[in-house]
């Protein structure tokens, strides 16, 4: 085989690999990228059960209830316009509190309860989930508002 032909074959293989990789990335991003929803987005747009999303908002005061197994909690997430019930089994982050911001990763089950697989809360004063930056919770009205 001539050197020219071999080079051509290599270039074709490389191009095919690149195109294949691009298609793979596009389809994987379409399926796996988790969109961020606030409770009001859930109400207005609707999220199908089982689709992985991130749910962000404030934990409603007085809503955290512990199940009898000692490791499951139920709580409500609000953005001031809508409220969504959620449930989580595991060890909660230290700064996961009522009246505090939370981003929950997970999916809705068929009964409309958000089953969180992971909770991201403010780590310390310096670290905050980026989705919650620029949001503030109003102690008096129990509403969230933009911090700008």
């Amino acid at each position: 085989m001539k050197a020219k032909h071999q080079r051509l074959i290599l270039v074709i293989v490389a191009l095919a690999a690149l195109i294949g990789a691009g298609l793979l990335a596009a389809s994987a991003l379409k399926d796996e990228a988790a969109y961020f929803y606030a409770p009001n987005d859930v109400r207005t747009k609707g999220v199908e059960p089982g689709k992985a999303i991130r749910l962000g908002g404030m934990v409603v005061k007085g809503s955290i209830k512990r199940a009898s197994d000692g490791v499951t909690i139920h709580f409500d997430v609000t953005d001031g316009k809508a409220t969504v019930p959620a449930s989580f089994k595991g060890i909660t982050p230290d700064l996961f509190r009522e009246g505090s911001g939370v981003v929950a990763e997970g999916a809705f089950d068929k009964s409309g309860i958000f089953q969180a697989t992971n909770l991201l809360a403010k780590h310390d004063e310096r670290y905050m989930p980026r989705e919650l930056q620029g949001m503030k919770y109003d102690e008096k009205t129990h509403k969230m508002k933009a911090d700008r």
Partner: protein
Amino acid sequence: MIAEAGLAALWLAASLALLQLALATLGLAGGKSDLLGAVRPVAVAQGVLTAVAFALLITLFMRSDMSVLLVVTNSHSLKPWLYKFAGTWGNHEGSMLLWVTVMGVAGAAVALFERALSRATHMATLGGQAAISLGFYAFLLFASNPFARLDPPAVDGQGLNPLLQDPGLAFHPPTLYLGYVGLSVAFSFAVGALLTRQVDAAFARAMRPWVLGAWILLTLGITAGSYWAYYELGWGGWWFWDPVENASLMPWLAATALLHSVTVLATRDSLRAWTVMLAVVAFSMSMVGTFLVRSGILTSVHAFAVDPERGTFILALLGIYIGGALALFGWRVGAVREGAPFELVSRETMLVVNNLLLSVILGLVLVGTLYPLLTEAFGHKVSVGAPYFDRIAGPIALALMIVMIIGPLTRWRRDRIREIGRRMAIPLGVGGVIFILLAATAWGRIGILPFLGLVIALAVAVGSVAPLWKRNLRRTPLFTWGMVIAHLGCAVSLGGMACDSAFTVEKLVAARPGDRVETAGWTLRFNRIMPIAGDNWTALQADIEASRGAEEPALLHPQSRFFASPPTTTTESALLTRWNGQLYVVLGQEADNGRWQLRIWWKPFVTLIWFGGFLIALGGAMALIGRERRGWLLKWRARNAMGAIA
């Protein structure tokens, strides 16, 4: 005075970098390669000055000098000395100073130890190194001065992020940076060779040890970081596809590809333009990573400061250096003569496939990391996490591992498929047997990726030592052993990953002191909870006795720690290591009725992940020493022969 001396050393180093660039430019433009004699001492002095500045910053931290702003915002007088010391780079300014120090010292090393490169290319390389350093000096001096004073001085400091207060901080960031920034040398080599149009096998042989050195340290740094995250975060995982982790993975992928292509160039004088391109890409990925981490557009424990001005500064540096290098590449690549041709069935082709697969993984990781930033520009908040990366990187990495078996068993230049097949018989046979055994016992119980991972890991383990088959082991060169050990390390690591995801047993309970918990053959007796105190923290500590079969019971002490400054709680997991796995216990919060949350994992063979990483680095070190030693021997023999003739 110490702070002023540090700042002065930095300014002096920056001016020397300018001088170094000017001298190199003059020498290149005038065709006077004897100017190299002047450029080298300047590069060495610049390296020494950066090291002095860094040592002075360490001194300020050790002394808890509260008149220095950086010490006040990131340290505390009551911190243990190790964290005062390591805290020097546990912040934005300090870590950028570490960055320029590594760059300066690497430049000095190139000036001192590089002997194989032609004088013109050597000078151009040192000029390139000075040019990149200048940008980062400017960034340090104008946008992140580590030596800024605070007037009046503070009474005490604000402390270091407790998550960073771990011995890991003393090892992981410096090693990672040595590798990360060490790739700047490869970048400068590429720029130098493009300027002098000397891209050939001799150039590749000169560049290879520098690439290997940086790659070894990067491998060690990533391995250490992974283990640190595993035990410190208490989440039981060893890789989270955090953008910051991706920022260290991407240069590693590029450097791994470069390592293989530079070998093709050194051995067969093929892949000239591609190797130069990869050298540019590798350090570009380091800079992209720094931009992602330092600009504050990401939030993580690694992102110390959220300051848009700094982000813009680094973005500008990125644009200048990557854009400049790519423009130089485009301008000069025509002048790079075509390398030696090779047949389609040859080791060269296998290494091209290796490079192609590594580049594809690199591209897909880059896309996944940047995608959330892109969509946010259009108003959608999206997160791309483990599901995406596992799905794309997993299958391609497995394909890469299969190529790793075939490549070393294929001859340079030309080979026959039938011959390769014959040499592959044993690894393929082992893979087939494992496949059947696993399929019979565990089909449907473990996921498809871990299943294939286990099969391929065992096939690669056998395949990696196959190149030693029928060879005189004592006469096999050290660099061949290096390749064997590094590839074996990949198999070991993959095996650990597959075992962890296939066989990990997790248990989450709320238990009272006195309760027994049974999981995965272990019995854990929860004795009590007690308060304890450390230097700058207090903690609740659980006392747990773990026993298995006839083994001696072992005590485990997971903690929940409270730090006063800054006020933070961290979980300290407790680990019990056995030859066949690790028991991992985390203490959670207090539940009702005097119960405490406990999270327990049994992770079979999980330690192989990091042991494999260590083997990969060890293989690299063997290859480096083997090549260098052969160089010395040849030179020594040549000198003796000359002496004999004279």
